[in-house]
């Protein structure tokens, strides 16, 4: 349960919007996590102040809170404020990108010159008739759609729907371009493009490795020893596969062309099964057999470990 937002900001219940904003700015200045690295209590105070400000700066929600209709956390929670994101990057090794002391690193104004030409050309281009802005969207792609290719629907903020053709083999971070689906052009220029950044979801069974897929396949002791046909889940539907006899846990079986679907001149990837022997519930008959069983070729599976204690 969040604290009383008026207390958090230290203002009276009849404070003016300006007073609330001022109190919030003061707290934000003192406690912003990016300005207070290494002080988690500052981050907590900042989050509390942000939540309190979110609630009290909206006249409608403030009135509802005053009437007791919503609690201090608000009925619909505001989206989490991502403050503090800079600190995580700046304290990690990649923070060297903005290191003013590094020899080959960052010096204010330095790389600005480097791009002066590019920036000038980009600006000059803008006075001419120019195409509309590209508008970026993110689209979450189900794992199997990225493997087999599919058409996914993207719902735009204005309610329009775009059909996005996903070619097989896309990966997270890749973006697709839909011509003319961006912002309208200026000075008679053409409309911009929709740039769609893809995020491929994970799959509970399959794992991608380039264009190959990996699947851990549990097998019974009998299937491992004798081999034989089993049914295996595959992206395009179950497959009937004949396992080789005498398979250990860890044995790989390669199903050619059953991975990521082919596209253009790129051939389809493979589906690699990694067998995992599962004994299942205890079985008295199996126990009796193993107890009386003398292997024809006794061996020590841990032999190779002797050299590496």
């Amino acid at each position, binding site marked *: 349960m969040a604290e009383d937002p008026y207390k958090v900001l230290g203002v009276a219940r009849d404070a003016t919007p300006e007073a609330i904003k001022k109190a919030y700015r003061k707290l934000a200045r003192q406690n912003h996590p990016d300005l207070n*690295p290494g002080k988690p209590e500052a981050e907590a105070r900042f989050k509390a102040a942000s939540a309190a400000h979110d609630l009290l700066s909206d006249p409608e929600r403030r009135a509802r809170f005053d009437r007791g209709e919503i609690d201090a956390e608000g009925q619909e929670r505001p989206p989490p404020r991502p403050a503090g994101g800079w600190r995580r990057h700046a304290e990690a090794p990649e923070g060297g990108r903005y290191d003013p002391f590094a020899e080959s690193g960052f010096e204010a104004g330095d790389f600005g010159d480097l791009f002066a030409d590019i920036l000038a050309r980009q600006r000059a281009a803008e006075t001419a008739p120019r195409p509309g802005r590209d508008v970026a969207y993110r689209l979450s792609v189900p794992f199997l759609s990225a493997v087999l290719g599919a058409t996914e629907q993207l719902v735009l903020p204005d309610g329009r729907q775009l059909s996005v053709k996903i070619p097989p083999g896309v990966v997270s971070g890749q973006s697709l371009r839909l011509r003319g689906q961006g912002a309208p052009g200026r000075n008679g220029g053409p409309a911009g493009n929709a740039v769609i950044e893809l995020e491929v979801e994970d799959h509970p069974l399959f794992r991608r490795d380039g264009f190959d897929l990996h699947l851990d396949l549990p097998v019974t002791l009998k299937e491992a020893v004798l081999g034989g046909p089993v049914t295996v889940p595959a992206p395009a539907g179950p497959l009937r596969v004949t396992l080789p006899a005498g398979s250990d846990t860890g044995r790989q079986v390669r199903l050619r062309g059953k991975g990521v679907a082919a596209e253009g001149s790129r051939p389809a990837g493979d589906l690699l099964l990694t067998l995992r022997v599962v004994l299942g519930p205890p079985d008295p008959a199996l126990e009796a057999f193993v107890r009386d069983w003398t292997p024809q070729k006794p061996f020590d599976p841990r032999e190779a470990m002797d050299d590496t204690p």
Partner: protein
Amino acid sequence: MMTLEVLCARFEGLDPEDLRGWIGAGLLRADAEGETLVFQEIDVERVRLILELRETLALEEEALALVLSLLDQIYALRRRLGES
């Protein structure tokens, strides 16, 4: 890696001209791939920080550059001290 359009579209109402201004003023880094400017995840957070300094804390352009420069020095020193 992302292009200027993708970076810009991550923030509502962010004008590409603002981004170019920050790059020109040395507040934001970019890498050049031919004629295209590309950005990394850390640059996204940099933009978020700049926007927060400008909008939430109401910093003017010159104060903002000063604060960023001080922050960069603090974080560089903290990294050297190996603290977290």
